[in-house]
């Protein structure tokens, strides 16, 4: 059990520098909940129920601007689709764990816990490290996320509009976007997605985002197919 505790601590410490991003991101989500026309308790509960910042932010924005339910549901889910990739990569390690662990541990899967775990795991990693390193990282990120979003909701109503804090939403998405365009096909997907989104601004209730995403994924796939040897 000592090893389990060590691994848990290691995971928690490894993500500590990343909290520099998690804390402001969580504060922004909380402040957005408090300053928009969204039920505060429901908005706050997205941290527990969804636990994925970009999706939470998109949902609050869509609900506040009057998007139809189908779009308000589809857009956050599309944003979270990237986690299917993480699930695929982690699956080769997680198959060593019990069924119960495999069922509940994915709840803690995030960009950060995925990146850190994959960087830590060796090709034939032992079960204790697989489970407890991941849980250390995941628990640290989860508790920080809940504290930061809660703090954001509490102070949110006091933030003056003149500070233009709504701009932080665009900045959060840019900060996630830049490292995601590491390859040329990914850059094509982003350029087409962004351009189509601008062209479909007049489409009703946020449906343009879905159309733009489909176009971007299509363009990226074609570019990938054309560029691959």
């Amino acid at each position, binding site marked *: 059990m000592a090893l389990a505790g060590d691994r848990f601590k290691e995971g928690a410490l490894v993500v500590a520098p990343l909290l*520099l991003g998690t804390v*402001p*991101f969580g504060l*922004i989500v909380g402040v957005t909940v408090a300053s928009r026309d*969204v039920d505060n308790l*429901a908005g706050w*509960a*997205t941290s527990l*129920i969804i*636990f994925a910042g*970009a999706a939470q932010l998109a*949902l609050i924005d869509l*609900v506040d601007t009057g998007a139809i*339910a189908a779009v308000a*549901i589809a857009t*956050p*889910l*599309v*944003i*979270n*689709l990237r986690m*299917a*990739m993480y*699930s*695929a990569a*982690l*699956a080769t390690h997680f198959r060593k764990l019990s069924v119960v662990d*495999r*069922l509940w*541990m994915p709840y803690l899967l995030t960009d950060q816990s995925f990146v850190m775990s994959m960087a830590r795991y060796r090709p034939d990693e032992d079960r204790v490290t697989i489970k407890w390193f991941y849980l250390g990282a995941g628990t640290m990120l989860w508790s920080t996320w809940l504290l930061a979003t809660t703090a954001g909701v509490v102070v949110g109503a006091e933030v003056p509009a003149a*500070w*233009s*804090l709504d*701009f932080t939403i*665009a*900045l*959060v*998405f*840019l*900060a*996630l*976007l*830049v490292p*995601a365009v590491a390859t040329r*096909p*990914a850059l094509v*997907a982003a350029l*087409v997605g962004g*351009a*189509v*989104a*601008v062209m479909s*601004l007049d489409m009703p209730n946020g449906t*343009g985002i879905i159309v*733009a*995403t489909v176009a*971007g*994924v299509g*363009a*990226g796939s074609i570019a990938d197919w054309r560029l691959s040897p």
Partner: protein
Amino acid sequence: MSLWLIIVIIGLGTYLIRLSFIGILGKVGVPGYIERPLRFVAPAVLAAIAVPELVAPEGTVAIGFDNLRLVAGIIAVAAAWKLRSMGPTIVAGMVSLWVLDWLF
């Protein structure tokens, strides 16, 4: 539809996405026709959300130096590229917007 129901559906859907391949044990490899397009979802959807916020902050396209959010956004992209970290990127973008707002 109530907001709570929407949140629960998204929460459940997100959980199922996270569970997906871990749930099916990784016994079956991920087919290429699923894995390849998945790689482009993140760049496409993130750009689809972020770009209109910069290019058309008021709802209509405004490309030029008088669109302060576009200028601040470009500075933030440069910061994100250099620093690869969310906190400093947000600070760079917000400070740029405030300074530009104060100057012009």
